[in-house]
């Protein structure tokens, strides 16, 4: 690891000021991703601004729902009474991620900002457009078992690895950020981006912007939520495919639904077409299968990850069945 300057700030303003000055300064939250990347030589900031002492870790009710501070730890959020009760999908997704130790360290903001786990991105001797624009994409034609089937580009086929984000995109979250030019709100679905020609950019956050909190609107999905994570081992592994579901049921009829997938795209992948289709339909395996088929439109494998073309729709059906409690 390179030597860097370390500073600690206790309010957002100071944090933003510190980071806006130049592009070699980075925020340090839980450090579970950033320190790892620094050890591997993928990131080499010259200054680290420790933001963990900024009091942005509260979880509180708002007029329309819940506000979660960006520095709240993954564990604290997953186990918070209001989250467990109103947004079980978020709890489940958080608990499916990483390990208990890492979740005690990782923050909500950091989780959103974590970078892809693509092996080529991590190995500084191999080509990767995300790490080193223009060097080529090692995963195309290579080891791409974990990679995307939706929204890829010829420059990058990486996935966003977060579990939490699948729940947040399904739950229509909004991100509150504060930056050198003031505060703004970003709908969660627009927070992350597709790789296009600039895979080095994971999301829409502007230089110097600090994530302050995430807002969740109240919903009626608490009773029928499920997060299904399919992975190579039973725990402590990133998703091959994951599915987040929230259903609002009226008898056996689906009144409303939220559906999103992880492990399949450069951003948390919301399945709007499938959602539209399912609204008002009976909760049966047949409709679930049709929804899954719709959801898979435009999916494309890259060789080693072709199996996701089967695993993803199957997982959608499984998750819907579990959420609807028809299983």
């Amino acid at each position: 690891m390179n030597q860097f300057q370390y500073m600690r700030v206790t309010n957002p303003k100071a944090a933003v000021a510190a980071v806006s000055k130049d592009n070699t300064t980075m925020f340090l939250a839980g450090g579970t991703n950033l320190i790892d990347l620094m050890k591997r030589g993928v990131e080499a900031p010259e200054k680290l601004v420790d933001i963990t002492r900024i009091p942005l870790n509260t979880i509180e009710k708002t007029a329309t729902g819940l506000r979660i501070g960006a520095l709240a730890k993954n564990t604290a959020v997953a186990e918070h009474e209001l989250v467990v009760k109103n947004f079980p999908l978020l709890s489940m997704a958080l608990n499916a991620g990483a390990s208990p130790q890492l979740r005690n360290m990782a923050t909500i903001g950091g989780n959103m900002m974590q970078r892809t786990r693509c092996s080529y991105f991590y190995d500084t001797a191999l080509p990767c457009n995300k790490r080193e624009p223009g060097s080529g994409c090692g995963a195309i034609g290579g080891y791409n078992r974990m990679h995307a089937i939706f929204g890829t580009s010829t420059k990058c086929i990486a996935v966003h690895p977060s579990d939490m984000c699948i729940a947040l995109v399904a739950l229509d979250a909004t991100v509150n950020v504060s930056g050198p030019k003031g505060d703004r709100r970003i709908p969660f679905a627009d927070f992350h981006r597709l790789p296009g020609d600039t895979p080095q950019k994971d999301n829409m956050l502007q230089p110097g912007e600090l994530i302050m909190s995430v807002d969740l609107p109240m919903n009626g999905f608490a009773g029928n939520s499920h997060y299904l994570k399919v992975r190579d081992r039973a725990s402590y592994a990133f998703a091959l495919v994951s599915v987040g579901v929230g259903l609002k049921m009226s008898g056996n009829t689906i009144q409303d639904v939220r559906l999103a997938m992880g492990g399949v795209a450069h951003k948390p992948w919301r399945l709007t077409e499938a959602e539209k289709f399912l609204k008002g339909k009976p909760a049966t395996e047949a409709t679930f299968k049709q929804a899954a088929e719709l959801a898979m439109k435009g999916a494309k494998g890259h060789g080693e990850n072709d199996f996701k073309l089967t695993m993803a729709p199957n997982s959608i059906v499984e998750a819907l069945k579990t959420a609807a409690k028809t299983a």
Partner: protein
Amino acid sequence: MTKDTKNPPIDRVDGRMKVTGGAKYFAEFEMPNTTYCVIVGSEIAKGAIASLDTKKAAGAPGVLGVFTHQNMPPIPGWDAPVQGNGNGPPPGPPSGGEKYRILHTNKILFYGQPMAMVVADTFERATYAASLVKATYTKQPHQTDLTKNLEKGVTPKGPRFEDYLRGNADAYKSAPVTLEVKYTIPIEVHQPMELHGVLAGWTGDDKVMVYAKTQGVKGTQKSVAEAFKIDPNNVHVHTEFMGGGFGMGLRTWPQEIAVVAIAKKVGRPVKLVITRNQMFSLVGHRPTTVQTINMGADTNGKLVGLSHAATGETATYEDFTEGTVSMTKFMYACPNVSTKYKIVPLDRGVPIWMRGPGEATGAFALESAMDEMATKLKLDPIEFRLRNYTETDPEHNRPYSDKNLKEAYQKGAEAIGWSSRKAEPGSNRDSDWLVGYGMSSGTFNASKGGATARAVLNADGTLLLQCSVTDIGPGTGTAMTMIAHNVLGVPVEKIKVEYGDSALPNSPQQGGSTITSTVGSAVHQVCTSVKKSLIDMATQSGTPLAGIKADDLTVADGFVSADGDSSKKVAIADLLKKANLTTLDKTEESKANGKPDEQKYSMYSFSVHFVQVRVNPSTGVVRVSKAVSVADSGRIISPKTAASQMIGGVAGGIGMALTEEAVIDHRFGRIVNNNLADYHVAVSADVPHTETIVIDKPDPYINPMGAKGMGEIALIGFAAAVANAVFNATGQRIRDLPITPDKLLRTA
């Protein structure tokens, strides 16, 4: 020794050290002024270093030296042709090219090969400086893909690896029921939790202290002494605790020797701890292996012919071999058996034996094939094995010293609930999950090597045992304690064991499941000798026990006493005093059994594994939901640590079966999932409650304790049991490990 009685379970003797953090592993010893070494590895698989820029690194804060092929201090013993590494591979030129010497020339023979070793005063500074070393290369095309180079296979030298034939090689072809199948296993990597490395410091011109991560301190001592042409007695190697080895510590790695050389040059102790990424390229692996099994059986379920061909990888610079096809030669009664074993030199780091070495690879193929054949014959897999059961070793035409495999099948079947198995694949459903049962057997050669042990009995009744053996986790110290207790009656808590230091009496390295037998025999012998002296002293005229025959005396709890008359006894302390001794101090060497081929009996440990799996057909996820392992490995010396070895084999076996695969991107010739987040070893959630069963009958011939090894058999065969269970659950036969969800979805 009362080998007819089972041993009680005792706590691991080093337990307290391990649970308090008091146990010290190599990197944790303090040597004043220790410096830190970091390796810079090559980024290509084959070619040469064109330029190496070390200037920036050398000028970085705290840096004491940057060592490359251009300025590496000489290693005198290495200027002569390499004679293996003390406990390394056989001498002589490798099949694939030239030998490898660390930091010797600009040639690159494998990805990750050390190009520079950077030494600085702190770990952080050494790591940073290493990142500043930049190389350019002249690349050459590399070959890292075994499947594309199978035709380059050569039969390794040595009688063990010659093609084997019994009867007619083609007999299987004309059998009524035939099977011809190919199995592959990927590269698996040991990945013990402790990172590899070494801490070395010179304490004189020709004297060096080495804290190593080795499965044999004597082997490392010899390697270092040979490399530096110094007296082995001047090389002090210490490895009391080792954070797992699984085979990767069975040789001295070149970088260890380099560190010793560099320590001399910088004049300060040097500590090297390689990174987890480097653990995938610098310390060996289980080689990718492609195997074909041809099997023929008659309609009664009797094997007619069996042939097994295996091709594994090695490096261009060293020949690596293992017993992949051994088991096929003797496991089943079959008149016509042929085996072939070949190795292909690739531009990769050299493999090293990994738990259950080649036998685990071979057993996956053989025991999967047995299951496939049973299916074809519509026979229960246990029944099929029983129909081909053999009480004599068909390879050597002689009896087994002891074999209780039938009992093992039966006990294991009962414990797993084999009767719940449905013969029809895919017919056992529990809501969305398919349930399946599978079994397999394993075997590994049992032997007794030579070793020396020292026993010191003190007047206060305490006993000290010494042997240089390392305890990498199986509980060797605990077994030594138990054996001494059994012979001398000294209470377990009054026995102290010292091991893992080259200054102690000779022991072979910890590996190949031989240590309990080998070191245990030495302990048994030296304790027996102590006992004999005590009895001699106790029965001298004038003592209360005079005239009583040795057989009618017992040594226990600080006394020698007459059997049946406990009033007749003498305190050991008094005996010593009378003889003017403060201690009774003996060192004895126990000899190795003769060569296996010259024995009257074939000696093997056997195991049987049973699993229940649950498979989700829509996601392809497999979970092992129950596991039972049965060991038939003679008398169990330490039941607790023995059971631990077996549950460890199950965890390792689940990894081998379901998750472990090091993936090479052949375009670059390197392993791309080179870390523990991407190379999946089993975690707690993957491993069900594991039931272990031991037959626990003494082998009458192997050694005085009747004990055989179990480290290898705990793993050997396990992966096949899982594959067989997956087939039973789904009807899908996966022949290339690991059985990941994608494979089940692909064949669905």
